[in-house]
């Protein structure tokens, strides 16, 4: 996984509450058995005027001129501002893959759905929570200022605004360490192999029916 320490990036809006993962990456793209290439299909139904199909060339599709992420001023944005309950619904990690593939490494919102938050961290995307009032300020500044950028510092846990204000944010200590070092969870957990084996032995004695061979 790509490590995340500091990032300075252009900011773009997804200005609505309850953005669900179906909206982030529609089901037809879930037929893929790959992890990459979902970027052009991020928010597919909002982004294009036609219906997307998997494995198609997206470069010639008609763009929706009313969708903010298509505006010239937001091209190459890497930080997304959003509203409450971002990433609700389906557990599809394809949503995080699409965000990352489209160049986003940070989403700032008042709240996130649990499964999406977990998926984001595992794909080098930092979810930052600010209050609704703070979000209103950020949205207003961004709309006012073309080329609005934010500097995110995960080491210091602060977001610095163009006016020099530094807003601190909370982040889970374990997730922070993983992101800072670009560590993947499996490697970390396998360091506990002995503890898992020891637990498993006791668990199997206590609940032997759980350890029968699964014979269909």
């Amino acid at each position, binding site marked *: 996984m790509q490590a995340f320490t500091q990032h300075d990036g252009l900011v773009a809006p997804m200005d609505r509450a309850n953005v669900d993962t179906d909206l982030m990456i529609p089901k037809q793209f879930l*037929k893929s058995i790959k992890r990459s290439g979902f970027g052009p299909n991020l928010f597919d139904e909002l982004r294009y005027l036609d219906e997307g199909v998997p494995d198609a060339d997206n470069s010639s599709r008609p763009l929706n001129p009313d969708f903010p992420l298509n505006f010239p001023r937001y091209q190459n944005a890497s930080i997304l501002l959003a509203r409450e309950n971002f990433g609700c*619904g389906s557990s599809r990690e394809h949503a995080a893959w699409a965000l990352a593939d489209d160049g986003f490494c940070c989403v700032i919102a008042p709240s996130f*759905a649990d499964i999406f938050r977990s998926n984001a961290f595992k794909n080098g995307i930092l979810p930052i929570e600010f209050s609704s009032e703070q979000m209103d300020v950020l949205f207003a500044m961004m709309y006012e200022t073309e080329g609005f950028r934010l500097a995110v510092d995960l080491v210091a846990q602060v977001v610095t605004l163009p006016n020099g204000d530094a807003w601190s944010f909370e982040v*889970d200590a374990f997730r922070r360490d993983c992101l800072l070092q670009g560590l993947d*969870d499996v490697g970390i957990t396998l360091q506990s192999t002995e503890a898992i084996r020891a637990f498993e032995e006791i668990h199997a004695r206590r*609940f032997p029916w759980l350890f029968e061979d699964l014979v*269909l």
Partner: protein
Amino acid sequence: MAQTLYDKLWDAHLVEQRDDGTSLIYIDRHLIHEVTSAQAFEGLSLAGRAPWRKSANLAVPDHNVSTLQTERAGGLAALPDPVSRIQLQTLDDNCETFGIAEIPLSDIRQGIVHVIGPEQGAVLPGMTVVCGDSHTSTHGALGALAHGIGTSEVEHVLATQCLIQKKMKNFKVEVSGRLEAGVSAKDLALAIIGRIGTAGGTGYALEFTGDAVKALTMEGRMTLCNMAIEAGARCGLVAVDEVTLEYARGKPLAPKESQWAAAEAWWRTLRSDDGAHFDRAIEIEGSAVKAQVSWGTSPEMVASVDGHVPRLSEMPDETARQGLKRALDYMGLDEGMPITDIQPDAIFIGSCTNSRIEDLREAAAVLKGRRVSSRIKKALVVPGSGVVKAQAEAEGLDQIFLDAGMEWREPGCSMCLAMNADRLNPGERCASTSNRNFEGRQGSGGRTHLVSPAMAAAAAVMGRFASVDAVGAVSPVTAGGE
């Protein structure tokens, strides 16, 4: 110290607690399907790792399968969509390569992963259960700690049999009294989501309790826990009681006779102790819950069937007003219109929420001897598994649906998420027993109204949303017009 059901399940699976607030939790059962597993198996291969405990895993294809008998008769190789075929073939290949038990597409036991798990006894009380699907919350109905995970976590569970977790908070939803006739677990679930919102359960394990919950069958409890995720809660829970034990008994993968007593003794402890601490609790009067219809693009946007679509003036703030405006625009509805004026074009009875035998019985009871309204363009009934399908056919339910003018399909996720050919066309409106009414969920531009099986059947007959009572007033002989 008094513990909640969630506390007990957590403690029984705690491998390691770390200083940073995370814990390693042991996973007893891992359910796998074709859509969220391929990349996990690939990750395993690339790292040169093997599954930690093969027998903990059970795979089944469901999301991306055709539900047409004609398309399935020729097996996987004959499926018409080449992209879907590759994904399904990849699941088969991975199960073969990694030595994981799979119920293949051709097997009568095939079906939606959250239907076949409990049905086969692959999910049992007291287990920790995960699957790369958010509706894994369904299995909490058996008193199991069950939740959805992303593909990275699928790989993590395959490789380590554990998950890195932070303990959730406890949330009690107590439903007193009884549900009225014609009101089902689905209506209760929608009413709860309408009350606490789609983020109301975020960070919580949601335990459903109270007399109205205890009175639910296992199928009803599964419907309720299935929808916990739509309230933002990764897992829903119902305490173990006689209903649970009766359900588990005799399932193909249930504990052997020699192990049953020990299992039952543990399972009987799986309830929240008196005085256990809940971080949040709400109470609902069962008799006050009415049949629900969702009118918007989020499962919290619900009204009772005798209610109306909200008005912009009723919204508390600008964000809510904008949200309502966008939802009404997408759904093609007017503010303030009565729910009973909404006319669906399509009917979908199925999904991991409502495709079990009891759901089909509930729909069939309304449809028996009646015809689907002439304004309905398509009406699908998709049983949750081959076992459910066979049972329904043995009871003659299939004939009731067919006589009403509906299609009787093969098991799969179907039009709940429309990954296969079962989908709405742009602008089409569906009375659906599924779980999500998000924009485009059932097909690009499609409009979803979430309802119970009985309400979907009532809408099918009347050609508009109606209470089950209203259908009853129409005699079977004359119904079906408009």
